[in-house]
């Protein structure tokens, strides 16, 4: 087992009395790819932003998040500036608004590169061509001279990935890197992301609401619901044999061609109701209002039970097998 890069313990993200992330614990090892899934509003983005120290005004994180031995929670803004980009960096969702419309792509990449202060044998001009090649951008010289709106969505998203990897970070947080592009381009973008992560020997936290993305690209998965981690563990076991009723329901409502080809007219099961807003999270298990297995016991918050290599936060885990 490789070394832990990020260790998050009893970690919350709150603004006053409301919390978007509630007491989560997880680890990311070196070279590991972790996927975080959940419905809209589950707190995935807030978790990602908080690790970068880029929370919106009025929000703060508590608990502990150690990145390579350094505590992020109490870190000063000055120190955060030092680690952003170099130790931890982020790929954002909406590539058009995430890039400066007034600066050429080349200049924006250059900043990310120059910031790194890593002693490198190559100059920016040499480096950039290698980078553009790894981003699978044809005609790099021309593309570098363009402004963001002159590129396609997929190209822009790959440029954002380029910026995120330019400083050789050890951890990359990618927040829905492909939600704004269509399914054909999605694969190109993800392939570029993964190959760059491997090239750097970095770790990846991939935030998405698409289970298929996680099951194809990640080794570990975290399922979030209303700010909590309800199930986490190796992708193979969680996706192959989900234990938490929410994970089961999510997987059940996923449409994939495989299923269609096999049982053409089978109706998709759906999860009734909707996730509570963070201002109105019920006590006990937050999923109880939509859960078919809920009982009186669920009025109390279930702890994270260990089942083999995974954690499951539910009172009624049907079978304990892996």
């Amino acid at each position: 087992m490789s070394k832990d890069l990020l260790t998050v313990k009893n970690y919350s993200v709150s603004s006053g009395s409301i919390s978007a992330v509630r007491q989560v614990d997880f680890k990311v090892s070196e070279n590991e790819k972790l996927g975080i899934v959940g419905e809209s509003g589950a707190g995935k983005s807030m978790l990602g932003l908080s690790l970068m120290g880029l929370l919106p005004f009025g929000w703060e994180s508590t608990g502990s998040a150690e990145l390579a031995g350094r505590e992020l929670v109490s870190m000063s803004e000055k120190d955060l500036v030092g680690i952003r980009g170099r130790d931890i960096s982020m790929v954002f969702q909406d590539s058009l608004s995430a890039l400066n419309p007034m600066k050429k792509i080349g200049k924006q990449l250059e900043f990310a590169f120059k910031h790194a202060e890593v002693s490198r044998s190559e100059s920016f001009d040499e480096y950039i061509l290698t980078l553009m090649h790894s981003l699978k951008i044809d005609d790099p010289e021309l593309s570098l001279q363009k402004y963001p709106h002159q590129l396609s969505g997929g190209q822009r998203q790959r440029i954002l990935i380029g910026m995120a990897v330019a400083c050789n970070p050890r951890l990359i947080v990618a927040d829905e890197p492909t939600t704004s592009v269509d399914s054909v381009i999605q694969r190109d973008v993800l392939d570029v992301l993964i190959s760059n992560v491997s090239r750097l020997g970095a770790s990846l936290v991939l935030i998405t609401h698409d289970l298929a993305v996680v099951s194809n690209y990640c080794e570990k998965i975290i399922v979030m619901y209303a700010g909590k981690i309800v199930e986490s563990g190796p992708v193979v076991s969680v996706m192959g044999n989900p234990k938490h009723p929410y994970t089961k329901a999510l997987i059940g409502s996923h449409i994939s061609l495989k299923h269609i080809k096999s049982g053409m007219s089978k109706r998709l099961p759906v999860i009734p109701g909707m996730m509570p807003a963070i201002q109105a999270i019920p006590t006990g298990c937050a999923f109880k209002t939509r859960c078919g297995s809920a009982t009186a016991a669920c009025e109390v918050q279930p702890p994270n039970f260990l089942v083999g290599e995974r954690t499951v936060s539910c009172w009624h885990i049907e079978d304990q097998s892996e």
Partner: protein
Amino acid sequence: MSKQDSATESKAILIVENASYEYRAVRKKLISRAVRQSALGNASMTISSGDAIGIVGSSGAGKTTFARILSGQLVPSSGVVSYLGTDLQQMSNENELGFRRGVQYVFQNPRASFDPRLKLGDSLLEPLKSLKILGNHQNIIDQTLIKVGLDISMIDRFSHELSGGQLQRMAIARALVVKPKVLIADEPSSSLDVSVRAQILNLFKDLTDDEDMALILIAHDLAAVAYTTKQIVVFSAGGIVEQGSVSEVLVAPKHKATADLIDASIGI
């Protein structure tokens, strides 16, 4: 839909023949110059009642342009669209009212398609009034809401008081109240969450059972379309490159664009 036998011909509602469209992007500020960009070339399709057609293709393939031509929002640069045998461009006022009633459209973003100041009941009443539909409007609305799985009491709420999924149902209900002959939905589920998306797709799947109405579902997600509809039309680079029943297209794709879509549709 593409069959030429007289039986289907007689039920044909909407026919598009060789429609092309060019967007004219006028660059302001600098030099006003019209840049022509071909978005659609020579697309033809016949839509008959009971059809459930899924339109797929990557972004920029011309799906939305085609849908907007179908619904009369865009006039094709060349080609003809006819509704119940009449060319849209040569319609009498009376026929046009019939067309506007007969072809309904559901947009991608339900939030943007409701007036936030109106109660939802009033939003639903609006098409009934403007299209001069006879009958007990309240009854029609109630029945439609039940059909899409919404509580009747929702008519007293405002759009911001509904979740994305509920609001998309409301948008579908608004399209259905006038009993259209063709319902066109452009990416109706892609702004929604996984679990909610399944609900909406199930609803559309139910609607395909209606033999009096044709459903056109547009999405870039092949799986969503394949799950919901009976036939698939693949768009690529501004044209129709392949069409057929869902199983035909999925099992034996003929065009590279189709194969790419199938390939890109990663499963769990």
